[in-house]
């Protein structure tokens, strides 16, 4: 049987998404299950990402698995010039599953080719971070009670933000979605994703700002607008306050609306939003543990 790697969000079908949602709900009810007893998971973080690593390692621990790995790439064989190929071959012999993060794009796909055991991508440069997308979907399901018929607002850097691209791809598998893209001229949603939506007959709208339209939203997915992304610093100065969400903007929004953010945030969500019941980004992070338990169980056919 071929192994079930998770490298890009599109490696999963709609059925896989639904399966992960079911399992995540099950793990949320009962997070401690000894399904990984006697198994070893290699947690290979070739670039530091404390947040994602702790989330994965918590998931593995709650499943009763043991962890070997690299947490600090500075001290590992990586800096001694060992190739990714050789590291993965070696680890394949030790462990039952690899969870890896790597600064180079495509590293996870390559590792999955080299490894005899399944690989879960925990981020490969600016390319893919599929477990983030699945936890975003689980957050949408939990707060809206469904994955179809969602009016999704994506705000900020829609050009380089890999989380919004993957979320768009995954959510486009479900019926009757509406996408609203709110971004500055320099950071628009790339044409290939808009083309994908057109091919699927999904409605989308593009805006420069969102104060007037925000009341239609079910989900507001915020991302950071970084100064470095602008070729002209004056352009950044002009738009930098347009993409900041404040509590007062949420006052007339739908009661079910929830604000999501992949974290860490800088200033794109004002701290006055934190106390709103519509702020969901901290709960969203906790959903990551249940979703990752689900992904691991699915990958290793433990459920």
């Amino acid at each position, binding site marked *: 049987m071929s192994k079930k790697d998770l490298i*890009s969000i599109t490696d999963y079908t709609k059925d896989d998404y639904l399966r992960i949602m079911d399992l995540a709900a099950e793990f949320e009810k009962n997070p401690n299950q000894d399904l990984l007893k006697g198994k070893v998971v290699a947690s290979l973080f070739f670039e530091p990402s404390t947040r994602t690593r702790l989330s994965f390692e918590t998931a593995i621990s709650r499943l009763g698995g043991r962890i070997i790995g690299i947490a600090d790439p500075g001290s590992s064989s990586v800096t001694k010039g060992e*190739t*990714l*190929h050789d590291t993965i071959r070696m680890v394949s012999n030790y462990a039952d599953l690899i969870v890896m993060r*790597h*600064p*180079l*794009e*495509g*590293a996870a*796909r*390559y590792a999955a080719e080299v490894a005899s055991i399944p690989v879960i991508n925990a981020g*490969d*440069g*600016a*390319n*893919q971070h599929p477990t983030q997308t699945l936890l975003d979907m689980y957050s949408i399901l939990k707060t809206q009670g469904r994955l179809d018929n969602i009016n999704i607002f994506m705000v900020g850097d829609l050009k380089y933000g890999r989380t919004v691209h993957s979320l768009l791809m995954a959510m486009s598998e479900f019926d009757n979605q509406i996408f609203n893209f709110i971004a500055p001229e320099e950071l628009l949603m790339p044409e*290939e994703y808009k083309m994908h939506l057109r091919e699927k007959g999904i409605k989308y709208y593009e805006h420069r700002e969102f104060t007037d339209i925000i009341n239609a939203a079910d989900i507001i997915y915020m991302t950071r607008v970084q100064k470095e992304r602008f070729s002209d610093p004056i352009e950044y100065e002009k738009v930098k306050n347009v993409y900041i969400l404040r509590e007062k903007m949420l006052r007339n929004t739908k009661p079910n609306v929830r604000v999501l953010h992949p974290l860490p945030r800088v200033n794109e969500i004002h701290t006055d939003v934190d106390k709103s019941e519509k702020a969901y980004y901290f709960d969203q992070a906790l959903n990551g543990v249940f979703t990752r338990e689900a992904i691991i169980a699915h990958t290793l056919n433990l459920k």
Partner: protein
Amino acid sequence: MKDSNKKKLKLKVSAIKDGTVIDHIPASNLFDVINILGLNKIENQITFGTNLESEKLGSKAIIKVSDKFFADDEINKIALIAPHAKLNIINDYVVTEKKIVEIPDSVQGIVKCFNPKCITNNEKIITKFKVIDKSPLALKCCYCEKITDKDHLQII
């Protein structure tokens, strides 16, 4: 092409008894074609002419390989850099078959991924692309998922 030019061309590159003639290669890509087909590693008799006049390409190259007949998937590799190439299959000094090259649906090796942060540019890995558009050419890297287009095409 005028008749006088045809005669000149025949003089420049001599005929072969059996084998394959690859015509209409852009002159600037001759050596890439030689590399891709591995012609620098075989023992067959090979003659080539370059910087020949061509109405279509401006300046073209032609390769004649004796006693060599290419499989379609082998020869189609050159379609990326010589899309207008034409093949004449020669048996006993007579053209017995004519072929054109076709851009394949996937490409292994040959092309470099244009993304400097791609794993294939940082570790010894054979590149792999899915051809998502044949004209204008667009190749999607199977590793980093970025698209290398015609303007960024670089032969390894």
